């Protein structure tokens, strides 16, 4: 039963992925501007044009071109960037670690901040403290990441300049690492100068991305905690003489966490999408920033690759969340 529903879910994901590939391909193909003309020097002959068209497969029908492109993509060949003259896959993999580190940092911030607000609000439910949590989470939710980023720049970059507003690491710093995971590798190597430089650059963009999610987590988890706190097993723990905070943390939290975990999974996928503009805002050298440069330079193969990668990440995260959820919650296993 479970295997069948997993297979159905996989198949449905494949159909979505195929649709995504079609949309990306069609969009980039209908873009005005002749990519061949952009690659050739002025004064190129008709034969040169024809040869290049054949080389890039533009002489075939659109449907043939699509399947050739799709076949290459499946084998990891996303074409060559027009502006940088390097394989798209190489460029994208170079930048991916920066974006992943930023997203994970934002997720950690959201978890810690949202989780503590939820516990705090549930602990003081029905009192002024809970109203405070409700008002601040409501406000945090109505402000999108782009605006949070700008407000943070004003607060911690200008009014009280303690953090860096541009870049990923101090430009004077020698970064000699094997991977592009500056933060994680620096941490592993114990290079604390590097880690603190990366942190002071990453904290603001990560906060901008994480604050709206923290608010969502706080609201949902607080609600589930309050529901759990009316249950008999919680009363039993109280009768046994445990304090309210202890009851919340060691009894209610475990049972209240499931809906929040699903929310986090789905919203994490959206958060990764948010990195595009936040990276731009903080001149952070990640994938999103590269995507916008690619659009400005009309580097279509590069845009195609990045958009496809983001979409695949989104679908993969959602699939993982769904499958984990049905594993954790047998009540919702449908066949």
């Amino acid at each position, binding site marked *: 039963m479970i295997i069948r529903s997993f297979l159905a879910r996989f198949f449905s994901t494949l159909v979505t992925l195929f649709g995504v590939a079609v949309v990306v391909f069609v969009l980039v193909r209908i873009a005005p501007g002749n990519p061949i003309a952009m690659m050739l020097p002025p004064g190129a002959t008709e034969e040169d044009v024809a040869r290049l068209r054949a080389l890039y497969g533009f002489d075939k029908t659109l449907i043939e071109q699509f399947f050739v492109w799709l076949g290459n993509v499946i084998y990891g060949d996303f074409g060559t960037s027009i502006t940088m003259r390097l394989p798209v896959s190489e460029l994208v993999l170079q930048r991916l670690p920066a974006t992943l580190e930023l997203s994970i940092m934002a997720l950690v911030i959201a978890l810690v901040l949202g989780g503590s607000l939820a516990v705090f609000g549930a602990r003081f439910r029905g009192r002024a403290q809970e109203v405070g949590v409700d008002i601040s989470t409501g406000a945090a939710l109505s402000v999108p990441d*782009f605006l949070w980023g*700008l407000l943070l720049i004003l607060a911690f*970059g200008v009014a009280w300049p303690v953090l860096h507003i541009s870049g990923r690491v101090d430009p004077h710093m020698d970064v000699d690492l094997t991977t592009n995971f500056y933060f994680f590798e620096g941490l592993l190597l114990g290079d604390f100068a590097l880690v603190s430089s990366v942190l002071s650059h990453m904290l603001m963009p990560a906060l901008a991305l994480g604050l709206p999610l923290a608010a969502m987590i706080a609201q949902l988890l607080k609600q589930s905690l309050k529901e759990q706190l009316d249950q008999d097993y919680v009363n039993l723990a109280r009768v046994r003489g445990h304090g309210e905070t202890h009851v919340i943390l060691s009894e209610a939290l475990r049972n209240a966490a499931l809906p929040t975990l699903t929310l986090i999974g789905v919203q994490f996928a959206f958060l990764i999408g948010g990195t*595009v503009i936040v990276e731009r805002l903080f001149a952070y050298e990640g994938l999103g920033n590269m995507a916008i440069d690619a659009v400005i330079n009309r580097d279509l193969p590069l845009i195609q690759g990045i958009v496809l990668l983001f979409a695949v990440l989104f679908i993969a995260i959602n699939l993982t969340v769904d499958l984990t959820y049905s594993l954790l919650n047998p009540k919702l296993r449908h066949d």
Partner: protein
Amino acid sequence: MTETQNIISAPRQRHRAVNYRLWLPLTWLSLVFGAAIFAPWIAPLDPLAQDLLYERLPPAWEQGAEPGYWLGTDGLGRDVLSRIIYGARIAIVVSLIAATAAAIFGSVLGLLAGFMGGWWDRVISRIIDIWMAFPPVLFSVLLVAVMGTGLASVIVAIAVIDWTRFARVVRAETLVQSQMDYVDSALIGGAGRFKTLLQEVLPNVLPAIVALFALEMGIAVIVEAILSFVNLSLSSDAPTWGGMIAEGRATVHYAWWVLVFPLAVLFLTVLSFSQLGEGLKRQFDPVLQ
């Protein structure tokens, strides 16, 4: 129908507690709409006029200010206040048209998917799934790159991306309404499917659409600002809030006013639309009252 009307116009005094959610945003938004409509009469100066002798003047109450430039000038000596007022025009025009297009397109598909079910639902839901897989900002940037920069592209990009918000909510809402007895009795009474959909289901789904519309206006304002920020909307001459913010971001260390004032206006406008949307949702939703 009468049942919903009763719920909406039910005891007035119970709404008093949430009224500020509607009136504060409405006050600010009417200011913004007023600025957008009457920009040529309100704006003290020409928003495009450059004056290199007066570049980066601070606001009127700071040292070194010049009279007449209330909120100071930008790097080309253009009046910040006048540009903010004209920027309201662009923001409101883009968000009104884009949100209307997204609402119509998304609601029609949502109604069809929810009411017709079967293949309609399967195909439309699948398209929504595919659409949602693209990060909205990246998708809009890509669309503008494909269509070329300009106001029309920005509007089309927002509508093309955000119809799924309406489609998802309207579909879910229509599914709920379709289970109701009044739909069956209309169908048994001999009303056609489309007539039932338009006359019975649509009016009951409409409150959700109105609340979403307010939320979508706010999203459209922010997307327009983002696209102008990355210089993919209008030319950098045009007075857009996003374009002003982009310049202000670059010069924030020595001309904070170029960033702070347009940012404050954008912030209040986005906040107002989202509070208005939430307020309307509460007003319409009997469960939340």
